[in-house]
């Protein structure tokens, strides 16, 4: 455990903390949402405010008139939409840098995260589960890769060779070569940032959702969303498909594998939203 923390401490350039997300998420779950508190929380960060307003006025969300007032944006679009915008903007900031150790170019990790977040959210919507929670957990699911990328940079040839030669999944190869793997270290980082235990568990176990007790459902959404994003070409880097099939994720969510193509089609239809969000990283 201490070793993992040392791994996090060693990294010089951690992404900026999406620190307002846990508090916003808790506000979201209260019966009467306090708009003023929401506006003041977002308003602490001027660049975040600017990005939210930019997104609010983008082709996808814009109504007839543009706004440059955060309070008005919150009233107009509703807190749910604003929350997802804030989550998306924070995610873009944290995830847009290239991660050479994984063969990930600039923006790719972000694109993958957004596509998968939208896919997982669609799956959650069908079951009536909390879409915002799924969306947030998803945006941050691979944040551990940012920490491990530096360590992998010099040994990625070995990593590829191991996954190919032994039919070993990426997670196992990381564990073997580095002693840690990205899902676990991502969960640990989010715990340090005081994200709620369900998000921490879901990120920690997003490659083995059955172990995320008692948060298997959230972890399974992440697992399935991850699959859909990969199928649709929004995976990335070396050996992107070196992941284990976890049929239990479908059982936990009580969905049939036959539904996966339908979720792919729905995600395809959301690509316009996804494209709008992509531009945040630019």
């Amino acid at each position: 455990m201490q070793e993992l923390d040392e791994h996090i401490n060693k990294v010089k350039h951690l992404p900026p903390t999406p620190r307002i997300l846990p508090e916003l998420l808790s506000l979201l779950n209260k019966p009467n949402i306090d708009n003023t508190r929401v506006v003041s929380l977002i308003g602490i960060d001027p660049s975040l405010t600017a990005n939210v307003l930019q997104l609010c006025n983008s082709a996808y969300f814009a109504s007839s008139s543009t706004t440059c007032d955060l309070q008005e944006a919150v009233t107009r679009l509703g807190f749910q939409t604003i929350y997802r915008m804030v989550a998306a903007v924070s995610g873009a900031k944290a995830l847009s840098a290239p991660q050479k150790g994984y063969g990930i170019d600039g923006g790719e990790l972000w694109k993958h995260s957004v596509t998968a977040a939208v896919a997982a959210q669609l799956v959650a919507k069908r079951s009536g589960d909390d879409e915002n929670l799924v969306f947030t957990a998803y945006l941050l699911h691979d944040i551990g890769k940012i920490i491990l990328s530096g360590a992998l940079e010099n040994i990625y040839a070995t990593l590829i060779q191991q996954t190919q030669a032994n039919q070993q999944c990426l997670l196992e190869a990381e564990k073997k070569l580095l002693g840690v793997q990205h899902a676990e270290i991502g969960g640990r980082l989010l715990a340090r940032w005081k994200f709620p235990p369900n998000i921490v568990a879901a990120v920690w176990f997003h490659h083995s959702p059955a172990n995320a007790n008692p948060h298997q459902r959230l972890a399974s959404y992440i697992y399935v969303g991850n699959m859909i994003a990969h199928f649709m070409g929004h995976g990335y880097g070396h050996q992107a498909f070196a992941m284990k099939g976890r049929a239990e994720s479908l059982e936990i969510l009580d969905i049939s594998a036959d539904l996966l193509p339908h979720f792919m089609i729905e995600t395809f239809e959301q690509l316009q939203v996804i494209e709008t969000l992509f531009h945040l990283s630019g």
Partner: protein
Amino acid sequence: MSTPPIHVFEPKTVIGIAEMAVSTREGDVLVTYALGSCLGIAIYDPVAKVGGLMHAMLPDSSIDPQKAALYPAMFIDSGLPQLFRAAYTLKAQKERLLVYAAGGAQIMDSQQFFNIGKRNYEAFSNLLIRNDLQIEAEQIGGLVNRTISLNISTGEVRLKVSGQPNEVTLCKS
């Protein structure tokens, strides 16, 4: 004094997911990125210098006929016949058409619950067999994301594999 390097930019037509295009324009390069478990299918008639490229997402249109009507290239079974027909309108002939394919990546899934890549390729090869067509060259399956391009002037089909720095030639006509 050494000669300064000259950069040659090819005009590229990008084919998105669930899209297809045919071309006979000199110098045109059709390209489709990030195939994942999707299938990139290229066809080329070296005599007429006509080529086409499609990025299909799923094997079978019967799951959503309305979507197939809107986006035929979303599915192998609705897209492939249209791709061939579009090439015929540009004077390609079936017996001269060379067929290439890339994509269909698969995760490590022994139970086969997440086997979209494999099913895409099966639908494709069954359709070719039924229509008495053969694959000229392909790079299918595995754990990688691919990009495929077709040069309309030369018929050259190139592949870029995610995480690897250089493109490789799948086939030179």
